[in-house]
Protein backbone atom coordinates (compact mmCIF):
# COMPACT_ATOMS: atom_id res chain seq x y z
CA UNK A 1 0.00 0.00 0.00
CA UNK A 2 1.49 3.35 -0.98
CA UNK A 3 -0.32 5.21 1.82
CA UNK A 4 -0.37 4.07 5.40
CA UNK A 5 -2.55 5.64 8.08
CA UNK A 6 -0.73 5.22 11.38
CA UNK A 7 -3.30 7.12 13.37
CA UNK A 8 -6.54 8.92 12.72
CA UNK A 9 -8.29 9.53 15.97
CA UNK A 10 -10.67 11.82 17.81
CA UNK A 11 -8.91 12.85 21.02
CA UNK A 12 -9.31 15.14 24.05
CA UNK A 13 -13.06 14.76 24.49
CA UNK A 14 -13.62 15.47 20.81
CA UNK A 15 -11.79 18.79 20.70
CA UNK A 16 -8.96 17.51 18.45
CA UNK A 17 -8.37 15.17 15.60
CA UNK A 18 -4.98 13.45 15.45
CA UNK A 19 -3.70 12.46 12.03
CA UNK A 20 -0.52 10.49 11.33
CA UNK A 21 -0.03 9.24 7.77
CA UNK A 22 2.91 8.19 5.65
CA UNK A 23 3.72 7.21 2.11
CA UNK A 24 6.71 5.52 0.44
CA UNK A 25 10.21 6.85 1.02
CA UNK A 26 11.08 9.65 -1.39
CA UNK A 27 7.42 10.62 -1.92
CA UNK A 28 5.09 13.03 -0.17
CA UNK A 29 1.45 13.23 0.82
CA UNK A 30 -0.10 15.63 -1.65
CA UNK A 31 -3.64 16.05 -0.36
CA UNK A 32 -5.87 15.26 2.61
CA UNK A 33 -9.60 15.94 2.47
CA UNK A 34 -11.89 15.66 5.50
CA UNK A 35 -15.61 14.92 5.66
CA UNK A 36 -18.08 14.46 8.46
CA UNK A 37 -20.89 11.94 8.13
CA UNK A 38 -23.30 14.50 6.68
CA UNK A 39 -20.99 15.55 3.85
CA UNK A 40 -19.20 12.29 3.09
CA UNK A 41 -17.96 12.09 -0.51
CA UNK A 42 -19.45 15.45 -1.42
CA UNK A 43 -16.26 17.07 -2.72
CA UNK A 44 -17.84 20.52 -2.65
CA UNK A 45 -18.34 20.19 1.11
CA UNK A 46 -15.01 18.59 1.99
CA UNK A 47 -12.50 20.39 4.19
CA UNK A 48 -9.12 20.59 2.55
CA UNK A 49 -6.42 19.94 5.13
CA UNK A 50 -3.69 20.79 2.62
CA UNK A 51 -2.69 23.77 4.78
CA UNK A 52 -1.52 21.29 7.42
CA UNK A 53 0.87 19.44 5.11
CA UNK A 54 4.60 20.15 5.47
CA UNK A 55 5.66 17.90 2.59
CA UNK A 56 9.29 17.78 3.73
CA UNK A 57 9.39 14.00 3.87
CA UNK A 58 7.11 11.00 3.43
CA UNK A 59 5.30 11.53 6.78
CA UNK A 60 2.63 13.97 7.91
CA UNK A 61 1.74 14.13 11.58
CA UNK A 62 -0.52 16.89 12.86
CA UNK A 63 -3.47 17.79 15.07
CA UNK A 64 -6.59 19.51 13.79
CA UNK A 65 -8.49 21.51 16.38
CA UNK A 66 -12.29 21.59 16.09
CA UNK A 67 -12.37 25.36 16.56
CA UNK A 68 -10.05 25.98 13.63
CA UNK A 69 -12.63 24.26 11.42
CA UNK A 70 -15.47 26.20 13.01
CA UNK A 71 -16.78 23.17 14.92
CA UNK A 72 -17.63 22.77 18.58
CA UNK A 73 -16.22 19.25 18.68
CA UNK A 74 -15.53 16.23 16.55
CA UNK A 75 -18.24 13.65 17.01
CA UNK A 76 -19.69 10.59 15.31
CA UNK A 77 -17.86 9.67 12.11
CA UNK A 78 -15.10 11.46 10.16
CA UNK A 79 -13.49 10.42 6.91
CA UNK A 80 -10.19 11.46 5.33
CA UNK A 81 -9.12 10.88 1.77
CA UNK A 82 -5.37 10.96 1.25
CA UNK A 83 -3.39 11.26 -1.95
CA UNK A 84 0.32 10.71 -2.50
CA UNK A 85 2.88 11.53 -5.16
CA UNK A 86 3.87 7.84 -5.17
CA UNK A 87 2.41 5.99 -8.15
CA UNK A 88 0.37 2.93 -7.43
CA UNK A 89 2.30 -0.27 -8.19
CA UNK A 90 -0.81 -1.78 -9.80
CA UNK A 91 -1.71 1.21 -11.95
CA UNK A 92 1.04 3.86 -12.31
CA UNK A 93 -1.21 6.30 -14.14
CA UNK A 94 -4.16 6.01 -11.75
CA UNK A 95 -4.92 8.22 -8.80
CA UNK A 96 -5.47 5.81 -5.91
CA UNK A 97 -6.41 7.76 -2.80
CA UNK A 98 -6.64 6.01 0.55
CA UNK A 99 -9.67 6.42 2.75
CA UNK A 100 -9.51 6.59 6.54
CA UNK A 101 -12.47 6.44 8.90
CA UNK A 102 -12.61 7.35 12.54
CA UNK A 103 -15.68 7.06 14.69
CA UNK A 104 -16.63 7.88 18.24
CA UNK A 105 -19.73 6.10 19.45
CA UNK A 106 -19.03 6.40 23.17
CA UNK A 107 -22.01 8.74 23.65
CA UNK A 108 -24.27 6.07 22.23
CA UNK A 109 -22.92 3.45 24.60
CA UNK A 110 -23.76 5.91 27.36
CA UNK A 111 -27.21 6.27 25.84
CA UNK A 112 -27.59 2.49 25.88
CA UNK A 113 -26.42 2.31 29.47
CA UNK A 114 -28.88 5.04 30.49
CA UNK A 115 -31.66 3.21 28.74
CA UNK A 116 -30.68 0.01 30.51
CA UNK A 117 -30.53 1.62 33.94
CA UNK A 118 -33.87 3.29 33.33
CA UNK A 119 -35.52 0.04 32.29
CA UNK A 120 -36.06 -1.04 35.91
CA UNK A 121 -35.54 -4.72 35.25
CA UNK A 122 -36.52 -6.22 38.55
CA UNK A 123 -36.81 -9.83 37.60
CA UNK A 124 -38.13 -11.95 34.81
CA UNK A 125 -41.60 -12.14 36.23
CA UNK A 126 -42.37 -8.47 36.25
CA UNK A 127 -40.01 -7.20 33.61
CA UNK A 128 -42.62 -6.87 30.93
CA UNK A 129 -41.78 -3.32 30.07
CA UNK A 130 -41.36 -4.22 26.44
CA UNK A 131 -41.19 -0.65 25.22
CA UNK A 132 -38.01 0.09 27.12
CA UNK A 133 -36.58 -3.34 26.34
CA UNK A 134 -37.21 -2.95 22.65
CA UNK A 135 -35.59 0.46 22.70
CA UNK A 136 -32.56 -1.00 24.44
CA UNK A 137 -32.30 -3.84 21.96
CA UNK A 138 -32.67 -1.43 19.05
CA UNK A 139 -29.93 0.85 20.37
CA UNK A 140 -27.57 -2.09 20.80
CA UNK A 141 -28.39 -3.49 17.37
CA UNK A 142 -27.74 -0.12 15.75
CA UNK A 143 -24.40 0.23 17.54
CA UNK A 144 -23.39 -3.28 16.45
CA UNK A 145 -24.58 -2.61 12.96
CA UNK A 146 -22.54 0.62 12.72
CA UNK A 147 -19.35 -1.12 13.82
CA UNK A 148 -19.91 -4.07 11.49
CA UNK A 149 -20.82 -1.80 8.57
CA UNK A 150 -17.61 0.20 9.03
CA UNK A 151 -15.58 -3.01 9.26
CA UNK A 152 -17.08 -4.25 6.03
CA UNK A 153 -16.90 -0.93 4.22
CA UNK A 154 -20.63 -0.15 4.08
CA UNK A 155 -20.20 3.48 5.04
CA UNK A 156 -23.60 4.72 3.85
CA UNK A 157 -25.24 2.02 5.96
CA UNK A 158 -23.13 3.05 8.97
CA UNK A 159 -24.06 6.72 8.46
CA UNK A 160 -27.78 5.92 8.09
CA UNK A 161 -27.75 3.84 11.25
CA UNK A 162 -25.85 6.47 13.19
CA UNK A 163 -28.44 9.05 12.19
CA UNK A 164 -31.17 6.75 13.50
CA UNK A 165 -29.22 6.21 16.69
CA UNK A 166 -28.78 9.96 17.12
CA UNK A 167 -32.52 10.38 16.79
CA UNK A 168 -33.34 7.58 19.24
CA UNK A 169 -30.93 8.85 21.85
CA UNK A 170 -32.19 12.38 21.28
CA UNK A 171 -35.73 11.22 21.97
CA UNK A 172 -34.54 9.66 25.19
CA UNK A 173 -33.09 13.00 26.29
CA UNK A 174 -29.74 11.45 26.99
CA UNK A 175 -28.48 14.50 28.86
CA UNK A 176 -25.08 13.16 29.88
CA UNK A 177 -24.36 11.26 26.68
CA UNK A 178 -22.39 14.00 24.99
CA UNK A 179 -20.23 14.59 28.03
CA UNK A 180 -18.52 11.21 28.07
CA UNK A 181 -14.91 12.01 28.88
CA UNK A 182 -12.26 10.44 26.67
CA UNK A 183 -8.65 11.20 25.89
CA UNK A 184 -8.68 8.63 23.12
CA UNK A 185 -12.26 8.65 21.91
CA UNK A 186 -12.43 6.73 18.70
CA UNK A 187 -11.35 3.81 16.58
CA UNK A 188 -10.00 4.18 13.07
CA UNK A 189 -9.84 2.10 9.97
CA UNK A 190 -8.08 2.44 6.63
CA UNK A 191 -9.45 1.15 3.39
Amino acid at each position, binding site marked *: MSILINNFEIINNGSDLAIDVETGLGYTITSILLWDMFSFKDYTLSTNLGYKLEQINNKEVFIVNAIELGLLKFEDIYFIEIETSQPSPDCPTCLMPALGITYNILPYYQCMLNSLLASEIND*CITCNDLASKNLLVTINLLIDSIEKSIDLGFYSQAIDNLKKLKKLCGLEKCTNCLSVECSSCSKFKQT
Partner: protein
Amino acid sequence: MIINETNNQAITISSLNKIYNQAKINGKLDSVNLYILNIIFKLLNGCCITLTNYEKQRLMEMYRKIYFHSNTICKNAFVEPYQYLKPKFFQADLEDCNSFNKFPKIYYWQEEDYNTISNDVFQLIDDTGYFITKSFDSYENFEIGKTINYSNYGKIIFLATNTLNTDVFKIKDFLNIEVNDSFTITYNDVINSTLFVSKNNYSYGDINFKIIKL
Protein backbone atom coordinates in the same frame (compact mmCIF):
# COMPACT_ATOMS: atom_id res chain seq x y z
CA MET B 1 -34.85 -21.96 64.25
CA ILE B 2 -33.91 -25.15 66.09
CA ILE B 3 -34.77 -28.35 64.28
CA ASN B 4 -35.78 -31.15 66.60
CA GLU B 5 -37.59 -34.48 66.29
CA THR B 6 -41.06 -32.99 66.51
CA ASN B 7 -40.70 -30.24 63.98
CA ASN B 8 -38.05 -31.49 61.60
CA GLN B 9 -40.53 -32.95 59.11
CA ALA B 10 -42.53 -29.76 58.87
CA ILE B 11 -39.38 -27.75 58.44
CA THR B 12 -38.10 -30.09 55.77
CA ILE B 13 -41.35 -29.87 53.85
CA SER B 14 -41.48 -26.15 54.31
CA SER B 15 -38.01 -25.80 52.82
CA LEU B 16 -38.98 -28.09 49.94
CA ASN B 17 -41.98 -25.94 49.34
CA LYS B 18 -39.70 -22.94 49.11
CA ILE B 19 -37.52 -24.69 46.56
CA TYR B 20 -40.55 -25.83 44.64
CA ASN B 21 -42.01 -22.36 44.60
CA GLN B 22 -38.68 -21.01 43.56
CA ALA B 23 -38.51 -23.50 40.72
CA LYS B 24 -42.02 -22.47 39.72
CA ILE B 25 -41.11 -18.82 39.52
CA ASN B 26 -38.00 -19.62 37.54
CA GLY B 27 -39.78 -18.73 34.36
CA LYS B 28 -38.36 -19.01 30.91
CA LEU B 29 -35.76 -16.58 29.74
CA ASP B 30 -37.04 -15.25 26.45
CA SER B 31 -34.84 -14.01 23.65
CA VAL B 32 -35.16 -10.36 24.65
CA ASN B 33 -33.99 -11.08 28.17
CA LEU B 34 -31.18 -13.24 26.88
CA TYR B 35 -30.12 -10.40 24.59
CA ILE B 36 -30.22 -7.95 27.48
CA LEU B 37 -28.23 -10.38 29.61
CA ASN B 38 -25.54 -10.27 26.94
CA ILE B 39 -25.59 -6.47 26.78
CA ILE B 40 -25.12 -6.25 30.54
CA PHE B 41 -22.36 -8.85 30.37
CA LYS B 42 -20.52 -6.85 27.69
CA LEU B 43 -20.82 -3.60 29.61
CA LEU B 44 -19.60 -5.19 32.84
CA ASN B 45 -16.67 -6.68 30.98
CA GLY B 46 -15.55 -3.17 30.03
CA CYS B 47 -16.40 -3.47 26.37
CA CYS B 48 -17.37 0.10 25.81
CA ILE B 49 -17.34 2.77 28.44
CA THR B 50 -15.93 3.28 31.91
CA LEU B 51 -18.61 2.52 34.46
CA THR B 52 -19.04 4.21 37.81
CA ASN B 53 -19.32 2.06 40.91
CA TYR B 54 -23.03 2.82 41.08
CA GLU B 55 -23.52 1.75 37.45
CA LYS B 56 -21.51 -1.43 38.03
CA GLN B 57 -23.58 -2.26 41.05
CA ARG B 58 -26.88 -1.65 39.24
CA LEU B 59 -25.76 -3.74 36.28
CA MET B 60 -24.55 -6.56 38.49
CA GLU B 61 -27.89 -6.51 40.26
CA MET B 62 -29.75 -6.74 36.94
CA TYR B 63 -27.44 -9.45 35.67
CA ARG B 64 -27.97 -11.47 38.82
CA LYS B 65 -31.74 -11.11 38.63
CA ILE B 66 -32.02 -12.12 35.01
CA TYR B 67 -29.44 -14.85 35.42
CA PHE B 68 -31.22 -16.25 38.43
CA HIS B 69 -34.34 -16.74 36.37
CA SER B 70 -32.51 -18.21 33.43
CA ASN B 71 -34.40 -21.45 33.45
CA THR B 72 -34.15 -21.96 29.72
CA ILE B 73 -30.41 -21.51 29.53
CA CYS B 74 -29.82 -23.36 32.76
CA LYS B 75 -32.35 -26.12 32.86
CA ASN B 76 -32.90 -27.34 36.35
CA ALA B 77 -32.09 -30.99 36.40
CA PHE B 78 -34.68 -32.72 38.49
CA VAL B 79 -33.18 -35.15 40.88
CA GLU B 80 -34.66 -37.17 43.64
CA PRO B 81 -38.44 -36.68 43.84
CA TYR B 82 -39.95 -36.25 47.28
CA GLN B 83 -43.43 -37.58 47.87
CA TYR B 84 -45.25 -36.46 50.93
CA LEU B 85 -48.98 -36.93 50.58
CA LYS B 86 -49.94 -34.30 48.02
CA PRO B 87 -48.70 -32.43 46.14
CA LYS B 88 -45.55 -34.00 44.82
CA PHE B 89 -42.42 -31.96 45.31
CA PHE B 90 -39.30 -32.10 43.25
CA GLN B 91 -35.98 -31.03 44.50
CA ALA B 92 -34.36 -28.78 41.94
CA ASP B 93 -30.70 -29.26 41.27
CA LEU B 94 -29.08 -26.03 42.31
CA GLU B 95 -25.84 -26.65 40.53
CA ASP B 96 -24.97 -24.10 37.88
CA CYS B 97 -25.05 -25.62 34.47
CA ASN B 98 -24.42 -22.90 31.98
CA SER B 99 -21.46 -20.98 30.80
CA PHE B 100 -22.59 -17.49 31.73
CA ASN B 101 -19.96 -15.93 33.90
CA LYS B 102 -20.81 -14.66 37.31
CA PHE B 103 -19.31 -11.51 38.64
CA PRO B 104 -17.46 -11.99 41.91
CA LYS B 105 -19.13 -10.17 44.73
CA ILE B 106 -19.38 -10.24 48.48
CA TYR B 107 -22.77 -10.86 50.08
CA TYR B 108 -23.31 -9.55 53.56
CA TRP B 109 -26.02 -9.94 56.14
CA GLN B 110 -26.65 -10.48 59.84
CA GLU B 111 -28.07 -13.64 61.31
CA GLU B 112 -30.79 -12.66 63.73
CA ASP B 113 -30.43 -15.78 65.84
CA TYR B 114 -27.50 -15.04 68.13
CA ASN B 115 -27.02 -18.76 68.72
CA THR B 116 -25.97 -19.17 65.10
CA ILE B 117 -22.58 -20.74 64.67
CA SER B 118 -20.38 -20.88 61.62
CA ASN B 119 -21.45 -24.42 60.83
CA ASP B 120 -25.15 -23.46 60.69
CA VAL B 121 -24.48 -20.83 58.04
CA PHE B 122 -22.10 -23.11 56.21
CA GLN B 123 -24.93 -25.58 55.61
CA LEU B 124 -27.44 -22.91 54.67
CA ILE B 125 -25.32 -21.38 51.94
CA ASP B 126 -25.23 -24.62 49.96
CA ASP B 127 -28.58 -23.40 48.74
CA THR B 128 -27.88 -20.34 46.61
CA GLY B 129 -31.49 -19.33 47.16
CA TYR B 130 -30.56 -18.63 50.75
CA PHE B 131 -28.04 -15.88 50.15
CA ILE B 132 -28.94 -14.64 46.70
CA THR B 133 -31.49 -12.28 48.18
CA LYS B 134 -28.98 -10.79 50.59
CA SER B 135 -27.26 -7.47 50.01
CA PHE B 136 -23.99 -7.52 48.17
CA ASP B 137 -21.26 -5.30 46.84
CA SER B 138 -18.23 -5.64 44.63
CA TYR B 139 -14.78 -6.73 45.78
CA GLU B 140 -13.54 -3.28 44.74
CA ASN B 141 -15.89 -1.49 47.11
CA PHE B 142 -15.08 -3.82 49.97
CA GLU B 143 -11.38 -3.18 49.39
CA ILE B 144 -11.97 0.56 49.76
CA GLY B 145 -14.06 -0.03 52.87
CA LYS B 146 -17.78 -0.52 53.17
CA THR B 147 -20.01 0.88 55.89
CA ILE B 148 -22.87 -1.46 56.69
CA ASN B 149 -25.85 -0.58 58.80
CA TYR B 150 -26.79 -3.49 61.03
CA SER B 151 -30.29 -3.44 62.40
CA ASN B 152 -30.30 -6.59 64.54
CA TYR B 153 -28.33 -8.30 67.21
CA GLY B 154 -26.45 -11.32 65.96
CA LYS B 155 -23.54 -12.75 64.01
CA ILE B 156 -22.45 -10.84 60.94
CA ILE B 157 -21.72 -12.77 57.83
CA PHE B 158 -19.78 -12.14 54.62
CA LEU B 159 -19.76 -14.51 51.69
CA ALA B 160 -17.13 -13.87 49.02
CA THR B 161 -18.17 -15.63 45.84
CA ASN B 162 -16.05 -17.08 43.03
CA THR B 163 -13.08 -17.82 45.24
CA LEU B 164 -10.54 -20.60 45.39
CA ASN B 165 -9.65 -22.72 48.37
CA THR B 166 -6.19 -21.16 48.25
CA ASP B 167 -7.42 -17.53 48.27
CA VAL B 168 -6.35 -15.52 51.29
CA PHE B 169 -8.41 -12.62 52.64
CA LYS B 170 -7.68 -9.89 55.11
CA ILE B 171 -10.56 -8.29 57.03
CA LYS B 172 -9.91 -4.88 58.55
CA ASP B 173 -12.00 -2.70 60.83
CA PHE B 174 -12.54 1.05 60.52
CA LEU B 175 -9.18 1.69 62.23
CA ASN B 176 -7.55 -0.37 59.48
CA ILE B 177 -6.63 -3.06 62.00
CA GLU B 178 -6.77 -6.65 60.83
CA VAL B 179 -9.61 -8.50 62.53
CA ASN B 180 -9.36 -11.92 60.87
CA ASP B 181 -9.21 -13.48 64.35
CA SER B 182 -12.73 -12.22 65.07
CA PHE B 183 -14.14 -14.32 62.23
CA THR B 184 -14.40 -18.00 61.45
CA ILE B 185 -13.32 -18.27 57.84
CA THR B 186 -14.30 -21.37 55.89
CA TYR B 187 -14.26 -22.33 52.24
CA ASN B 188 -17.33 -23.91 50.68
CA ASP B 189 -16.35 -25.93 47.61
CA VAL B 190 -19.99 -26.56 46.62
CA ILE B 191 -20.48 -22.94 45.66
CA ASN B 192 -16.79 -21.97 45.40
CA SER B 193 -17.14 -19.25 47.98
CA THR B 194 -15.43 -18.17 51.18
CA LEU B 195 -17.60 -17.66 54.24
CA PHE B 196 -16.79 -15.30 57.10
CA VAL B 197 -18.89 -15.62 60.26
CA SER B 198 -18.16 -13.35 63.20
CA LYS B 199 -17.28 -15.15 66.42
CA ASN B 200 -19.12 -12.52 68.44
CA ASN B 201 -22.56 -11.03 68.10
CA TYR B 202 -22.79 -7.47 66.86
CA SER B 203 -25.43 -4.96 67.83
CA TYR B 204 -27.22 -2.21 65.89
CA GLY B 205 -25.36 0.53 64.07
CA ASP B 206 -22.94 1.32 61.26
CA ILE B 207 -19.77 -0.71 61.02
CA ASN B 208 -17.08 -0.21 58.42
CA PHE B 209 -15.21 -3.22 57.11
CA LYS B 210 -12.56 -3.74 54.50
CA ILE B 211 -12.20 -7.14 52.92
CA ILE B 212 -9.08 -7.46 50.84
CA LYS B 213 -8.26 -10.45 48.68
CA LEU B 214 -4.49 -10.89 48.78
